[in-house]
């Protein structure tokens, strides 16, 4: 059999068949990953009766507008979207500032405690979020920050991953001579960081921004224990909470789910190259 496959006469055929199988597997993978998203978008045009019929429906229905109205009845959808946007946006901005400051200091300065901070930071990456959930809740409670959005983004602005990413980035792409030159020109330390270093870090910051935004937007556990009033809740919480409504209008819920994915989808498709390369370089090296 193998002899035949190695016969030059058949080489082309074997090569083509190999290519075909390869593409079949790869595209099957795409179908399996993307299909649930398409399915949820499709279901958002159905109402309860067509959705729960006993036959498999693979076409769009006409209930989209209806579902949209229902969506707003069962959950404060746009309010929750706005809250998520606010939490993710503010959190991202501040984490860009904080992570770049810390990462820069860890990369450039020699100071007492630097190694301790670095080690603690790396170790804290390993602590599972559920573990710190109770103390997090208690500190928030003690500070009187329960049911505020600040509590849901501030603690996550010092992401160890982000600090690590920026540190690596500074080491790799900010030449020491440039910092010396800035100092000779009389720039203060903060000025050097702000107007010399930050612009150089732009690609790294872009990666971090996407990663942080995605993490904050998708966070569920922390809002779940902190935000308890309906008008403060974020989108992940609100989506989940409709599960407990009797006779859930699933068409409307699927519409909400699909809409909640869209902002991330847009950001991701615009920046996938940067995000994927940034994630892997920060993670592996």
């Amino acid at each position, binding site marked *: 059999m193998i002899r035949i496959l190695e016969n030059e006469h058949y080489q082309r055929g074997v090569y083509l068949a190999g290519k075909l199988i390869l593409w079949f597997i790869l595209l099957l993978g795409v179908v399996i990953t993307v299909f649930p998203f398409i*399915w949820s978008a499709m279901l958002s045009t159905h109402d309860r009766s067509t959705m729960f019929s006993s036959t498999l429906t693979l076409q769009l229905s006409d209930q989209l507008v209806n579902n949209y109205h229902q969506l707003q009845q069962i959950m404060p959808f746009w309010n929750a979207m706005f809250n998520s946007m606010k939490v993710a946006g503010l959190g991202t901005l501040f984490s860009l500032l904080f992570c770049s400051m810390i990462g820069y200091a860890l990369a450039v300065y020699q100071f007492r405690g630097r190694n301790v901070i670095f080690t603690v930071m790396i170790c804290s990456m390993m602590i599972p979020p559920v573990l710190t959930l109770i103390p997090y809740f208690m500190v928030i409670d003690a500070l009187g920050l329960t049911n505020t959005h600040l509590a849901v983004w501030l603690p996550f602005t010092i992401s160890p991953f982000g600090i690590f990413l920026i540190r690596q980035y500074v080491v790799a792409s900010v030449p020491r001579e440039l910092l010396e030159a800035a100092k000779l020109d009389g720039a203060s330390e903060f000025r050097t960081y702000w107007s010399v270093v930050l612009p150089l870090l732009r690609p790294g910051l872009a990666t971090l921004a996407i990663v942080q935004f995605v993490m904050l937007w998708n966070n569920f556990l922390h809002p779940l224990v902190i935000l308890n009033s309906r008008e403060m809740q974020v989108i992940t919480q609100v989506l989940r909470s409709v599960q407990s409504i009797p006779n859930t209008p699933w068409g409307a819920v699927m519409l909400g789910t699909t809409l909640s994915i869209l902002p991330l989808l847009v950001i991701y498709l615009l920046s996938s190259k940067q995000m994927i390369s940034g994630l892997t370089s920060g993670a592996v090296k």
Partner: protein
Amino acid sequence: MSRNLDVSPEVSDVVRAADTAKADNIKRLWNKSTPYWFVSPYLIIFGVFGVFPIFFMVFLSFHHWNPVAGLGSMRWVGLENYELALTDPMLWQAMWNTLVMALLSGIPQHLVALPMAYLLVSLGAHARHWLTTAYFLPYITSTIAVSMIFYIMYSPQSGLINHMLRALADGTLTSWAFGWINNFMPIAWLQENSLIRYSVSFVVFWKYVGFNIVIYTAGLATIPNDLYEAAKIDGASSFQRFRYIALPLMRPFIFFAVTLTIIGNMNLFEEPFVLTRGLQTAATNGMSISNYLYRVAWEWLDMGSAAAISWILFLVIGTFTGLYFWLFGRKGLEGN
């Protein structure tokens, strides 16, 4: 400076010198403290939300405390919380569930991701980019959204999965092979206690396999092409090249990806939470340690026990990662 007016020039010189010395000192001190200004956000936020709570958690785990009653209601109970937790069959069940789901979702993730990444690398950059983008999509989507979609797809009467199985069982061409499925219809993927772990594990697998593909693709891209070429000349088949060149050189990446999977899977929370409707259905086999912890703390409001469970969870995760590092760490890290 006003005092310069009523003192002699010599004195004013001394004062001036002292002033500059003082300014120098301040400047030096300021310069020395710069790095600390830069790291101060970390020190403050991590101190408040990281260091202090960890110590408080130790303290809390020896107390009985209901958060609704305020801090004053804290009562010292010694090791009772640990004793209660460790003798609670539910905790052991949750631990077992977590382990089973971690393995059921974790092992296939890597078994699928490695060959897929190998296939991807053989493509051109453009095709690879678009395929990777698609595979990565579930990873960036919120677990809640994903779990909601799967919750619908798993639905026993009208869910997509049962529809497809039914179509297979009744189809004229496929009924001979799949007809037996009808005996089990409708399959209650999330309500049947014996199935729930598999259903949850599949969602976890589906969500994270793309992330691993991306890491492995990045790893494979670092392997120089000459190695493959040389092996090809020596007559190595495609599989042999994967087995004897790619796989050994991928060790650090595999090590990294598996470590992330272990830590992530031991922390499983959202998937079981949504898929079992906030743990209302089939709670026994679907509950992970994190779910159990959440329930003890926020549904039963027993923070002391929850703190004790946290430490037990920490120990378990630490043991697994430690064991893994001990077994594979040297081989996994040698490439770096």
